[in-house]
């Protein structure tokens, strides 16, 4: 495997009782890349993310992460190798405070029994969590119970928990879903900048083309379980297949209108 490659996927296939959810997926992801995964509902985006992170076992194919094969391995072992994820619906500990959520994440990231047996509230851990909270704008929510927070803040917490172990690869499943349009770009600015600083490779599933266009180096467009386009944003968003199967005519005209308006302002 090329040293610059962090993720290598070959002939990945997944079917559920004869229904094909992913077919013939081939992909190379270089270190430090930020990749957007787009596609209509049911195109196979989340199935792909779930297979890479161990939530689903592929029917056939190969997944290599950082030179090691991780095909069909369970989620916690994949997490330990350095590939983490966040979820479309935030997966946080709802009855605990933001600080407690992060303290648990930091404790588990170390994977050593001695650290697990120490009191959760240790000065060292609290300092580490406070740094993370500052980076992800969570400080003002430090002692709030998670189920009282807005969807946007929960999303940030979900992502912050996924990155405490400083993963090499992070998969974000619709990081802006359920987040208000005013909060979307703030959230993505915050997350992408923090991850770039950390040198983490990012793959994120997204429906909002503005978000995709603004943050990614490369787009993977899915249709019926297959990658129909793998190219930089300017190429991918003008690709005829992407326009037909992903953006759709209405989305295409909206996207073109946005471009025209933006050109007008410029």
């Amino acid at each position, binding site marked *: 495997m090329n040293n610059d490659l962090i993720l290598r996927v070959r002939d990945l296939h997944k079917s559920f009782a004869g229904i094909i959810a992913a077919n013939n997926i081939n992909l190379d992801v270089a270190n430090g890349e930020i990749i957007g995964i787009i596609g209509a509902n049911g195109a196979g985006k989340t199935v792909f993310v779930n297979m890479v992170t161990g939530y689903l076992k592929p029917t056939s194919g190969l997944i290599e992460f950082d030179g090691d094969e991780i095909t069909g391995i369970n989620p916690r072992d994949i997490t330990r190798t350095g590939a983490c994820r966040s979820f479309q619906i935030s997966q946080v500990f709802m*009855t605990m405070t933001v600080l407690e959520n992060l303290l*648990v994440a930091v404790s588990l990231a170390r994977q050593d029994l001695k650290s697990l047996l*120490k*009191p*959760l509230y240790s000065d060292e851990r609290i300092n580490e969590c406070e740094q993370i909270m500052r980076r992800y704008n969570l400080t003002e929510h430090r002692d709030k119970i998670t189920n009282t927070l807005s969807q946007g803040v929960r999303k940030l917490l979900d992502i912050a928990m996924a990155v405490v172990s400083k993963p090499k690869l992070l998969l974000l499943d619709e990081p802006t879903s359920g987040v208000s349009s005013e909060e979307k770009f703030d959230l993505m600015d915050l997350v992408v900048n923090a991850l770039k600083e950390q040198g983490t490779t990012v793959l994120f599933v997204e429906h909002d083309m503005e978000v995709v266009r603004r943050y990614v180096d490369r787009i993977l467009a899915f249709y019926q379980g297959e990658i129909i386009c793998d190219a930089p944003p300017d190429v991918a968003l003008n690709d005829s297949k992407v326009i037909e199967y992903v953006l759709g005519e209405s989305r295409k005209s909206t996207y073109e209108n946005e471009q025209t308006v933006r050109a007008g302002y410029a």
Partner: protein
Amino acid sequence: MMRSILLDNTVRCVIVAFMALACIGLVLPNWILNNTMFGLARGLAVLGLLLLWRTGLISLGHSLYFGLGAYAVALLEKHTGSTDIILRLVIALTVAGVIGFFLGFVLRHYRGIFFAMLSLAFSMVLYGVLVKTEALGSTDGFSVSQTTFLGWQPASKYPLFLSIIAICIVAIIGVQFYLRSAIGYLTTSVRDNEIRVEYLGYSVARAVHIKYIISAALAGVSGALIAMSLGQVDPDSMVNWTVSGELVFITIMSGPGSVVAPFIGSITFEFLRTFAFEWAPHAWQLIVGGTLLGIIFALPEGLWSLIQRLWTKKGKVL
């Protein structure tokens, strides 16, 4: 370590309260002393159930470990003649812990009603074996001789009472520090979101298994202490499903708020049952059941929430 133990509010209150109880025990009438001993001893099993409850699990079969602890004491005496408290407790703890370790491999994969019913099934297997096996005392069980302390046989039950208090203090401190540790916080984490725990790189099954073994060991010690206090073990009063039901009953009555709650709930239950039986020998269950309903409606977080409210009014935090 010792400093952090003494700085803990709960631990300090427990030590003071239990030392006071130990002093009061000297002048308590026998029936009150007995009830308090039973309450404290049973509280250990309830403490184990509290651990599981905080993880989101209810076991309807903890009489398995309670019974194993009690029968370990009786069988040790039958086969070796030993009545020493340390040996009795070590055997009870080991038997319950080891069986909990093995059954945990099965139970750790189940949740909700499946966990509850499977644990009940295991306990009923032991009940069936005990009832049908002459060598294990069958339905009559065994009598248990008075406990000795390194060869010394006391004239009263007070030394056993003191030992139970000491064991309860150790258990409370242990569980309190376990719950405050990172691995202890996994009880709430697992109950809240198993997926996130797995994606943080920790095995949910292992987290459940550890809590199950601890709760099994506590139930084993609890059963052993009850056997020593009562002087008798038999399948109906130690292993039957009603024993498990009683433990769950006390757990709900106590509330999950504190490691002290199981002991308060358990002592309350012992006295409630005694008085209910005294007042209405043929309908005492009605009084006990009615009280539980009243507590559930008035104090959904259990008896402990009442104490917490009183303490908060005084501006103190326990």
